[in-house]
């Protein structure tokens, strides 16, 4: 086992008794439990962890947590691979496999590295300009491969993801000192509290800063606070959990990382937290500085360097130069110094940094005040940095100093992490001195606390966080006394924001490291007259991608402010959007995958169909037999055999999904008369009428039969996909338009099984069962209904059907369906009974000339278009959609009308969707199209249905139908091909 050459002898929060080995870019390394992938790589001396997005420049670690823009890695392989994680946030586990992205074969030796030579050819927007001829799409695949991030797995993810809903009084986002203080206050005040933090341990910056709180070491205070919260029955602490989005009415979405081990029951969990109040204590992110070559590996944020040294016991370098404009960086320098890292100098861009610089000087650290960074030197690792007096503080010439080092720690200021607050539409004000947008008056139910509210000292964070927690609890109705806030030593935390070096080298001065956007790119965008920050963001891509501009946004604004000669508040910020940090698609999908993505409904005859080797398909959300594979060698043969049984013997069809709505009450007839286009008031009890329903626009939305069981009791049958829609429309009209009608509607669709027994031998089959219903055609004619018993099963039988044959539709309590189906198959076997699927039924109704709403009608079809125009003249009452039928457009003679179509070639099945071309020579212009089509054995030819312009007055006309390069000569006909006198139907 190799040792870690850059690991400090002692200290850190790692567990040295638990060594772990992992693989990065194909090489095996060692680390300890408690390491992140980033800290372990740094301990092993791996300084190049990725290549830049566009130019493939070598990149190392800049941050130590979610702010990291460079170290993007891909974890694992195959189905469970996860792309685009930040190495700084990946906890190492035994055997972890990680790869750098956007480089090959490794980050250190990258075949695309030559691209950096072409930097001058690739300014902002270069792909729009350079690759326009002949088409961007020629170049896109290659460019996407060269400039890209991780690779998503190509096979389904086998892991399990969950989601949970949670309600609380106070949600505290961030488990640093401010957040812990807020959670303690809210919990002690009696509120239900949820505290979330994205790290594996609470404490935030306290993990690497040596501080005291309430007179004890800060981490002991953190441990006691965590214990107190965990002991409370009304508090919940979620670690490794990112609050990534805020939505309306205080809904905050969290993603919790649970297990990356293969054996973990759940990998990640999505939380929907509805909180009365939200305290955002998400801290602040340190800013890099913009100067030439500021992306060379070995240049990192001061806070990150301190975190690596103190939290992970890793030496980020041997000789460091600090380039700072903040007081906080002096603490980082001291932290590194006492761990044996030489501090070559602290370069402070402020002319007079004050007492803090003097005490550093007393500790032996050279201070260069009023100096600014000019350029870094080094390719694969930083070798030195050149600094010079700021032009504002003296002459630039002659003041240049070259400082040898292998680590540059930068600190240009602090940006409060206001993403969530801003997503909740919180207002912000600009603080010029600190160079940051700071939350102004809180938005409804949302407030920021601690560093997120602009407080940079520990003492302020604790006081502010505690007050915020107490206020939030009070606002949520908690009444107990929260007691006193924790206290820490007062300290200075001054900042004078510094964006960018005034010196040259702008084309290599990086602003957005992740997207390879330089200061030169921003200058170009402004030179090309882009003014809005939203436009500049999109043109240069600054602030986009995985890190959402965490380290780059404010520096970009600072530079733009100079270029546009406008103040930063006038430029404004770009819109913050969820997610704050990337979230896996698995988490967002949670359990809604596979069969749970769109749960299908099954009929009560599901098993019987499966036993008959039905081929199932999703028809309007129902899992139904399309055809039965037991009936032949292939699909066509099976459908043909099923149709033959229906036409010459008897068929059984499972119509259970058919919509069934009971309508009862003294005004039921009046109500249905208003809902249907057809007159339903005059329907006699025991009789059935076909009807269509319209929208208020007059368009046909559904059809089916309406059965009058008694004077005040109807059963409406809708299309299988239309049941809930029509039921909803009934409720809508009854509640909102006609609340005076005494009508009760109930959707009984799934309570009833439905078996259609159809075919010339249908009556013969039913008569072989014991029944008290008289099946004689005179006693029980077409379009009538009878109630009674079939064997021992209570049934309702309706003389209706969709095949055009003698047909009995049996309705029975769903639970009896299977036994009756079985009985019908047994008794009917001598006469050739056969179950038929949807495909056969569709062909049977097509050759009968029956239309199917939604297939043979579209979103414009009116009743007259399908030949039901005369019904209107006979009905005097108002109904839904009536006024729309009186528009001039509704009466046009050239509307698309429902007709039959016959190909000249009897064996040619016209393609569905093919258009009737107005001009066969040019094949331009449409006179309508084919909607249903099939080969009919019963008719000895192919038939089709369609919607044709003025079609009903063009019967007999020859037309040309065009599809896929071919013209089919055909004729417009009446679709009444089969049994036009209705003798079979009425048998």
């Amino acid at each position, binding site marked *: 086992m190799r040792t870690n050459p850059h690991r400090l002898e002692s200290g850190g929060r790692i567990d040295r008794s638990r060594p772990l080995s992992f693989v990065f870019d194909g090489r095996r390394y060692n680390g300890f439990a408690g390491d992140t992938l980033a800290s372990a790589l740094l301990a092993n001396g791996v300084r190049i962890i990725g290549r830049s997005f566009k130019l493939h420049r070598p990149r190392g670690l800049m941050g130590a947590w979610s702010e990291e823009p460079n170290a993007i890695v891909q974890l694992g392989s195959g189905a469970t691979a996860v792309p685009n994680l930040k190495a700084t946030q990946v906890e190492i586990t035994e055997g972890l496999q990680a790869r750098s992205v956007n480089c090959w074969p490794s980050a250190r030796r990258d075949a695309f590295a030559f691209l950096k030579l072409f930097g001058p050819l690739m300014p902002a927007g270069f792909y729009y300009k350079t690759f326009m001829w002949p088409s961007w799409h020629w170049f896109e695949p290659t460019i996407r491969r060269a400039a890209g991030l991780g690779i998503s797995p190509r096979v389904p993810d086998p892991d399990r993801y969950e989601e949970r809903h949670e309600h609380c009084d106070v949600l505290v986002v961030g488990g640093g000192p401010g957040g812990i203080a807020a959670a303690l206050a809210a919990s002690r005040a009696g509120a239900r509290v949820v505290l979330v933090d994205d790290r594996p341990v609470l404490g935030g910056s306290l993990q690497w800063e040596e501080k005291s709180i309430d007179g004890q070491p800060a981490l002991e205070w953190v441990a006691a606070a965590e214990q107190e919260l965990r002991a409370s029955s009304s508090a919940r602490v979620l670690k490794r959990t990112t609050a990534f989005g805020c*939505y*309306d*009415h*205080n*809904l905050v979405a969290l993603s919790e990382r649970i297990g990356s081990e293969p054996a973990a029951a759940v990998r990640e969990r999505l939380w*929907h937290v*509805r909180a009365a109040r939200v305290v955002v204590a998400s801290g602040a992110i340190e800013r890099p500085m913009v100067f030439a070559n500021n992306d060379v590996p070995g240049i990192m944020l001061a806070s990150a360097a301190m975190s690596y040294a103190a939290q992970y016991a890793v030496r980020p370098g041997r000789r460091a130069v600090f380039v700072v404009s903040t007081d906080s960086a002096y603490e980082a320098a001291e932290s590194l110094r006492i761990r044996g890292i030489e501090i070559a100098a602290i370069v402070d861009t402020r002319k007079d940094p004050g007492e803090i610089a003097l005490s550093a000087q007393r500790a032996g650290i050279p201070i260069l005040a009023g100096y600014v960074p000019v350029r870094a030197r080094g390719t694969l690792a930083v070798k030195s940095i050149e600094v010079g007096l700021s032009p504002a503080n003296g002459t630039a010439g002659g003041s240049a100093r070259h400082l040898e080092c292998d680590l540059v720690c930068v600190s240009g200021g602090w940006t409060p992490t206001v993403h969530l607050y801003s997503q909740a*539409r919180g207002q912000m004000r600009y603080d010029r001195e600190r160079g940051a947008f700071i939350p102004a008056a809180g938005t*409804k139910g949302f407030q920021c606390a601690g560093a997120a509210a602009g407080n940079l000292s520990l003492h302020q964070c604790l006081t502010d966080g505690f007050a915020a927690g107490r206020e939030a609890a009070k606002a949520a109705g908690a009444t107990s006394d929260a007691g006193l806030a924790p206290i820490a030593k007062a300290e200075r935390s001054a900042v004078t924001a510094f964006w960018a070096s005034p010196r040259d080298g702008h084309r290599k001065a990086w602003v957005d490291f992740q997207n390879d956007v330089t200061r030169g790119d921003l200058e170009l965008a402004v030179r090309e007259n882009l003014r809005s920050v939203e436009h500049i963001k999109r043109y240069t891509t600054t602030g986009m991608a995985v890190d959402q501009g965490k380290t780059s946004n404010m520096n970009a604004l600072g530079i733009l402010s100079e270029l546009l000669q406008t103040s930063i508040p006038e430029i404004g910020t770009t819109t913050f959007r969820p997610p704050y940090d990337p979230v896996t698609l698995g988490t967002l999908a949670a359990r809604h995958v596979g069969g749970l993505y769109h749960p299908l409904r099954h009929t009560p005859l599901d098993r019987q169909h499966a036993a008959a080797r039905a081929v199932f398909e999703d028809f309007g959300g129902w899992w139904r037999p399309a055809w039965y594979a037991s009936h032949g060698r292939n699909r066509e043969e099976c459908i043909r055999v099923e149709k033959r049984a229906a036409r010459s013997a008897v068929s059984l069809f499972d119509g259970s999904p058919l919509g069934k709505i009971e309508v009862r009450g003294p005004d039921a007839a009046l109500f249905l008369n208003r809902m249907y286009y057809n007159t339903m008031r005059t329907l006699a009890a025991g009789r059935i009428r076909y009807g269509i329903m319209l929208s*208020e*626009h007059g368009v046909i939305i559904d059809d089916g039969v309406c059965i009058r069981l008694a004077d005040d009791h109807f059963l409406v049958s809708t299309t299988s996909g239309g049941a809930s829609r029509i039921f*909803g429309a009934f*409720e*809508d009209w009854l*509640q*909102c*338009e006609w*609340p005076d009608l005494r009508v009760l509607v109930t959707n009984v669709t799934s309570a009833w099984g439905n078996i259609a027994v159809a075919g010339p031998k249908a009556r013969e089959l039913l008569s072989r069962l014991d029944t008290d219903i008289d099946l004689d055609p005179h006693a029980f004619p077409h379009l009538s209904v009878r109630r009674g018993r079939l064997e021992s099963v209570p049934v309702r039988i309706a003389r209706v059907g969709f095949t055009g044959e003698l047909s009995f539709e049996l309705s029975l309590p769903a639970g009896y369906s299977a036994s009756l189906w079985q009985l019908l198959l047994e008794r009917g076997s001598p006469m050739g009974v056969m179950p038929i699927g949807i495909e056969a039924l569709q062909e049977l109704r097509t050759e009968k000339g029956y239309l199917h709403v939604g297939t043979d009608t579209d979103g414009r079809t009116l009743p007259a278009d399908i030949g039901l125009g005369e019904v209107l003249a006979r009905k005097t009452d*108002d109904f839904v959609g*009536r*006024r*729309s039928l*009186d*528009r*001039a457009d509704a009466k046009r003679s050239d509307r698309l009308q429902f007709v039959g179509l016959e190909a000249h070639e009897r064996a040619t099945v016209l393609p569905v969707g093919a258009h009737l071309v107005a001009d066969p020579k040019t094949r331009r212009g449409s006179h309508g199209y084919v909607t249903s089509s099939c080969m009919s054995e019963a008719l000895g030819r192919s038939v089709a249905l369609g919607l044709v312009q003025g079609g009903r007055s063009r019967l007999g006309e020859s037309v040309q139908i065009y599809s896929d390069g071919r013209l089919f000569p055909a004729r417009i006909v009446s679709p009444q091909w089969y049994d036009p006198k209705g003798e079979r139907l009425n048998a």
Partner: protein
Amino acid sequence: MLRISCPWCGPRDEPEFRWGGEVPVIRPGPPEAVSDSAWAEYLFIRDNPKGWVRERWLHALGCRQWFIVVRNTLSHEIRTTTKLGDSLPETAP
């Protein structure tokens, strides 16, 4: 995601509800007395204001009752919800 207080069931998340558009919309009639423009107005023309609006919502996955919501289209704030049949709330505070 909105949190809507159904006047029958209490506060629930938005996926339980279905939006039904602005109210009031008066259905004109009888059909023979309605002009084309009045009918078009009824079918298509809505105020769509920026700010407070009265709308009807259906508690589709709950009690299946339609009710009235006063919502701000800019902030998504919901001021009040009332049952159908109660007097229509004002939009101005």
